[in-house]
C-alpha cells in the first residue's frame, strides 16, 4: 500500500544518489557501513542488532566520546524488500513486541530505493505520532539535530544580509 503524507506530522525526503542501487542498499544493510553515516560526527553509532526481515530487531546505540554508549534507536523492521524497500518503526521492538517507550516520539520510516538514470532515487518517508517531547529529545542526545537547525538558520540569515 502507498502511505498518505500528513504534512503536519510527516516528512518526505528524496535524493538522487550517483551510485548503483546495490551500493546504496549496502550502505544501509551493512551495519559497519550504516554506523558511518547514521548520526553525525563526533557522535559515534554502534549497531547492536540489524535483523533485516519482518519482525527483526533494529537496535542502535550512540556515544559522545566513543566509550560510553547510550540507547538511540530500539525498533522493529516491518517490511524488507532487498534493494527496494525498508520499513521500520520504534512503536514496536524486535519480534513485533509493543515498545514500552519511544524517543522522541513514535515513528515509522519507509525507505525506498529505485533505479534512476543517474544512479539511485533514494527516498525516506517518516511518519510521527505527534510532536515529541522536547525535554526527552535533548536528554536522548538529539542535539545533533539542533546543531543542524542552527546552522541552517544561520545560513539563511547570512544569505539575507
Amino acid at each position, binding site marked *: 500500500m502507498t502511505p498518505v503524507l500528513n504534512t503536519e506530522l510527516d516528512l518526505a525526503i528524496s535524493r538522487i544518489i550517483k*551510485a548503483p542501487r546495490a551500493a546504496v542498499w549496502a550502505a544501509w544493510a551493512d551495519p559497519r557501513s550504516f554506523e558511518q553515516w547514521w548520526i553525525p560526527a563526533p557522535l559515534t553509532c554502534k549497531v547492536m542488532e540489524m535483523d533485516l526481515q519482518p519482525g527483526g530487531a533494529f537496535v542502535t546505540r550512540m556515544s559522545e566520546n566513543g566509550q560510553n554508549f547510550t540507547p538511540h534507536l530500539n525498533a522493529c523492521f516491518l517490511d524488507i524488500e532487498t534493494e527496494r524497500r525498508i520499513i521500520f518503526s520504534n512503536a514496536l521492538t524486535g519480534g513485533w513486541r509493543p515498545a514500552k517507550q519511544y524517543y522522541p516520539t513514535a515513528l515509522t520510516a519507509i525507505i525506498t530505493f529505485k533505479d534512476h538514470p543517474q544512479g539511485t532515487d*533514494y527516498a525516506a518517508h517518516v511518519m510521527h505520532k505527534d*510532536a515529541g517531547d*522536547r525535554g526527552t529529545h535533548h536528554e536522548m542526545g538529539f542535539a545533533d*539535530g*539542533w546543531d*543542524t537547525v542552527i*546552522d541552517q538558520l544561520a545560513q539563511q540569515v547570512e544569505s539575507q544580509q
Partner: protein
Amino acid sequence: MEQYQEQLNGLFQALADPTRRAVLGRLSRGPASISELAEPFEMALPSFMKHIRSLEESGWIQTRKDGRIRTCSIETQAFAAADAWLSAQRAIWEARTDRLEQFVVARTKKEKRR
C-alpha cells in the same frame, strides 16, 4: 505580531556569529557555566561575555548566578519560535541523507579505482 517579528529578527541576528552558534550547540546538550562555555575559544573573557549577553538579550539563553558561578541554559521557547519541531526532524533526516550520499559516492569511487 510586530513584536513577534522583532523577537524573531533578534534571534536570527544573534545567530549570525560562529561563536554564538557554537555556544548554542553546546547548550543544546545541557546547561553549562560561563567558564566551561568559554574554554574552547581563544578569546578574552570580556569579549566572550559580550556574546553571552547578546544571546541572553535576544532570548536564546537565560543565565543564573549561584554564588560565584554563572550558569547558562537554553531558552527552549526561542527554539520553538525560530523553528518548529517537524523542521528539526526534517533537518536530522536531510543531514542523514547527505551523509549517506557522501558515504556511498566516496565508496563507489574508491571501488572503481581498484
